């Protein structure tokens, strides 16, 4: 069932790709094939494969329970939060928050999760920013660190 839904979505996508590629506005070109042909060929291959998958789908072996889905959605939300905070709040604060939530999600007690994430972010900040000289955001709060 999931196979069919997914293949259907890809089929729509391959149509969109072919349509978009067909309407590329190419002012001039020196070669016979041009930028349109390759994506169009690919979309045809994709569409054919998708039709095949719709006709002969695999048996579904994945049955996500509600609990699992909730965990995954939370995990995704935390990562989006991390991406949002990363630049503005800086590495140390955002890593502490996000690390603590992840550690807690994977079964750690809240206080220990927080302390672990705090230690992790401080040590890593030193390792990554000072020792490896990576581009790690300090954030607005610690702007002069």
């Amino acid at each position: 069932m999931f196979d069919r839904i997914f293949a259907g979505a890809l089929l729509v996508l391959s149509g969109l790709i072919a349509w978009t590629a067909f309407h590329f506005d190419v002012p001039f070109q020196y070669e016979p094939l041009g930028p349109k042909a390759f994506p169009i060929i690919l979309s045809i291959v994709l569409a054919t494969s998708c039709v095949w998958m719709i006709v002969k789908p695999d048996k579904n072996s994945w049955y996500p329970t509600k609990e699992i889905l909730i965990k995954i959605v939370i995990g995704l939300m935390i990562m989006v939060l991390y991406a949002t905070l990363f630049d503005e709040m800086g590495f140390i604060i955002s890593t502490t928050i996000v690390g603590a939530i992840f550690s807690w999600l994977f079964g750690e007690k809240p206080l220990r999760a927080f302390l672990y994430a705090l230690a992790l972010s401080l040590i890593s900040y030193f390792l990554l920013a000072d020792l490896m000289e990576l581009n790690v955001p300090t954030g607005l709060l610690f702007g002069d660190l």
Partner: protein
Amino acid sequence: MDVLHYLSIGFSVALTPLNLGLVLAGCFIGTLIGSLPGIGPINGVAILLPLAYSIGLPPESALILLAGVYYGAEYGGRISSILLNVPGDAGAIMTTLDGYPMAKHGEGGRALALSAVSSFFGSMGALLLMVIFAPLLSKLAIQFGPSEYVWLMLFAFTCLATMVGKRPIKTVVGVVIGLLFATIGIDSGTGILRFTMGIPNLFDGVDFLVVVIGMFAISEVLILLESWARNDLKLTPVGKSFISFSDIIAVKWVIFRSTLSGFLIGVLPGTGASIASAVAYGTEKRFAEGKDEHFGTGDIRGLAAPEAANNASAAGSMVPMLTLGIPGSGTTAILLGALLMFNITPGPLLFEQQPNIAWGLIASMFIGNIALLVMNLPLIGLFVRLLSIKQSYLVPIIVMLTFVGIYSIHGDTFDLFFMIVLGLFAFILRKLGFSLAPIILGLVLGEVLEENLRRALSISGGDWSILLNSIMTYVLAFATVAALTAPRILKAFKH
């Protein structure tokens, strides 16, 4: 004696203090990553790639580090296979069959030591084969024109589709998705924008690192989140048993055969360690039939074969990557992407023009293998203890490393969001039984494939018959058709 001369250049590169340190670090980190259940070589290399790139290592040093992680992880994958019955990665699945029963009989130490020795001989043998055959292959490849390259890539994709995964059609879809990713951005031929949806961050094309990290590391975190609910791994005690000399003598031919087949399968484009170890195990099982075999219940031959083969294939898969620019496995696809990021185009000329990179890497692999053997015999207890690291400590580290790695490339949070979207997409793909390696292969080869196809047709003025204009193109076309039909024909014969 060209080879010896180049090899000495290689060792002079590999033995500089920086590179020596990086080999050791790479092997150590690799074993560590490989031994953690769930995080295989491909994830390890993916997570470390942006860091290696951002630190600003010279290309050969970065490659030496990442390659060390790669074959280190192939070594480490066996530890959790043997002690937990959970393969560290796909290549170590066969190791569970006889390794875990041995550990259950109290022979964990013997199994670990024997598998380390088999891995060592497997990769050393494959390295020697690589030193002999890589320069020959690169000499042959110098004569390749655009048509040959088009066929070579089609051959690689066909091998991948017919050999990897249960459903070839899903591999085809994966490859096409990867190829489509590669078309995003400014078209090099005409300068028009393709599929950028008006997002300026995509004008340069999708960033290879963002795709790799998103698809592998982020989806891995989601998979870990999902599987955590039913996670109760029990570590089997290692015991005091150890390998004896007679064990090694008993499996010497097993190791020899498995190394050869592992290397060959590694060289075949697209196929990797999981197939190599499965083939080697199957072969040995057939060889041993009737001769006091207890495969599946702790036979040392069943342990030595997949371990020698999967490490041999890791070295083998580097051969087409370095000589043809066509990766032999998912992980080498990432290594190839890494080279491209450093503006180095692997291919037949690499060995001639940049011997320090090609031969430096090969020499470093010799050093790395010895280091791995040394690390894996006495230090095995350390890695075993690391197996009991809690996921609640591990996952925050993975997430942090991926975010820092991606952010430090451009300093732009767009990449972070894009990475998460790709991670979700890859998670769905994995749950539906797609393998991710074809996508990476498609992404890495997409531009080269399109460029060569367009170049070939420019030369011929649009005449498609140029794709069959030389003996080599016929050979490759035949090989492609053979790879496409052989599994079906073999099946028909069996019935």
